[in-house]
């Protein structure tokens, strides 16, 4: 007997997420070069707001999407600078707030404070990197921004194009012509 059985509906509900309504076309692909060609063609026809879901990042697809460089590095740099400044500031403040000379040493002796500054730089830089990444990747994502297919974490690639009406029909035909295994229009 499974004691956790009463929790099953709750778990299923959590994993499924809140119900959402989507408008657009989802194409499911197997071949990477099919995806790349579809992405290039879609972008040429003005669908710049498409999304590609894949189990691994494919460099060919990245190049076709021409996404540019992530700005997470600037967030990380900010955290690291704050960390090193804060680490040194903490040490210097602590010895000047209650000046207690020990063994005739300088109160502000920078060499031993390097360790604190260095470790604080790594700590705050890493935390900034984490929070920057989470913000930019929009995680945690509770409500899906596009229809989801579990095969996208297995071996299939999805292309989601938000569109409606006549455009959706054209996108559907384009995907079919570019090797999509399945194309679903969400209206």
């Amino acid at each position, binding site marked *: 007997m499974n004691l*956790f059985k009463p929790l099953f509906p709750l778990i299923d509900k959590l994993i499924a997420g809140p119900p959402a309504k989507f408008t657009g076309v989802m194409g499911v692909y*197997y071949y990477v070069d099919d995806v790349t060609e579809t992405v290039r063609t879609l972008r040429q026809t003005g669908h710049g707001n498409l999304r590609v879901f894949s189990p691994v990042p494919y460099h060919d697809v990245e190049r076709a999407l021409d*996404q540019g460089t992530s700005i997470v590095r600037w967030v990380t740099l900010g955290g690291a600078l704050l960390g090193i400044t804060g680490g040194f500031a903490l040490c210097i403040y602590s010895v000047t707030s209650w000046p207690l000379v020990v063994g005739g040493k300088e109160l502000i002796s920078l060499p031993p404070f390097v360790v604190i500054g260095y470790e604080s730089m790594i700590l705050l830089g890493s935390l900034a990197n984490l929070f920057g990444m989470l913000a*930019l990747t929009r995680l945690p994502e509770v409500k899906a921004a596009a229809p*989801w297919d*579990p095969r996208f974490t297995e071996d299939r690639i999805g292309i989601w194009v938000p569109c409606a009406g006549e455009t959706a029909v054209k996108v559907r035909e384009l995907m079919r012509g570019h090797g999509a295994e399945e194309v679903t229009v969400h209206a």
Partner: protein
Amino acid sequence: MSETTYEPSADPEDVGVGEHLPATVTQKSLNADILRMHARPGKIWWSVFLLDLLILAIGGLAERNQIVYGIGVAGHTRPVMWASYVTNFVFWVGIAHCGTLVSAILFLFRSHFRRAVYRVAEAMTVFGVMTAGLFPIMHLGRPWFPYWLFPYPTQRQIWPNFRSPLEWDVFAVTTYLTVSSIFFIVGIIPDAAAQRDQAKNRFHRLLGWIFSFGWRGANYQWKHYYSAYLYFAAFATPLVLSVHSVVSWDFAMAQVPGWHSTIFAPYFVAGAIFSGVALVINLLIIIRKGFKLEHIVTIDHMEKLAKLVLLTSTIVGYSYLCEFFCAWYGPSKFERDMFWDRFFGHFWWSGWIMFTCNVIFPLLLWFKTVRRSTVPLFIIMLFVNVGMWFERFVIIVSSLAHPFNPSAWGVNYKMSWTEAAILAGSFAWFGMFFLIFVRVLPAFSIAEIKETLVPPMRRKAS
């Protein structure tokens, strides 16, 4: 429709011949193979787990004994007041170094063989630091006040001494625990999403849902994720080098003969990587055999790790010889006496165990047949870890037992049963986390191993 001028790449990344997985491994089979580890545990797993809990309970009782009766129940005797607990602390911090080496340093060097092994190494890192962090607390006379170590002023507005290596240690170890945990959890995100979508059991799906943070593998997510991952690696690399350097300065900043040496930082870092990689080899040998994953963690992966052990063994061996040379060539009679005492004094046996296990046995790894046979490899790595525990014992206990003052040379430190039980309990504590981890989260990086596979292409590149 526009004409396609794009030339697809039909090969995976530029990895070594041995790093390619067999052709039978596909993206789909990889998910299934790795998530298969989450099947209902069998009798062997339960037996090992219960034995582990029993040993942990004995260790817990010993710690309870020490809290009730005081630190005197440990065998610490003046002048050896840092004995087994500090030895254990340094040993476990050392073990914890391998994960970040494999994850971060090899990531930056684009050593793709890391992909099949790094999750196990990272888990070992996190659990290793969690184990190491217990020992300074146990070693406190009043273990209920560990927060006094943290940087905040007392009621009299006096701050901790930031010039003290012990305070550096607090910063280094807590930073290491935080960063390695973040690195570990961030690495799991895409694989947890696979677990959320593919796992058969609801409990595993729920865990996948929690650890995936709602990951969808969207193009913008991969872009920021890998960019951030690169910076995690860039931070973790100097961190891994600094943490054990700081640990070594706990000793090197003191005047004690045998400790006051500038070689300590690189010597400790090399030793830490040496012991950590040895333990990860042991764990991988058990996991790949137990879960029948030899086609994913191939013998080529094991050989590459064995080469790392061989390299670090030579650095450790060089450091031993260098220390002896400096003692012999240097001006300090106390230093010379101490080093003589390490191999021919009261604790001679520990010195010889250290040297044999860390320098002599690993020489067998020069032979390719040994590096590619799991049984000899497993035995050598066990010896390496025994040797590395004794290395810390030699550095700490034999040095403290032979200080400047000859009247203190009447060595009388003996490990008490409390210390022995706590040492055994620490292995059980580590083992408990590891045994649970392999059963509930992906123990291998599904997404990164998939990158090693040939991407599916309809039109092969010319």
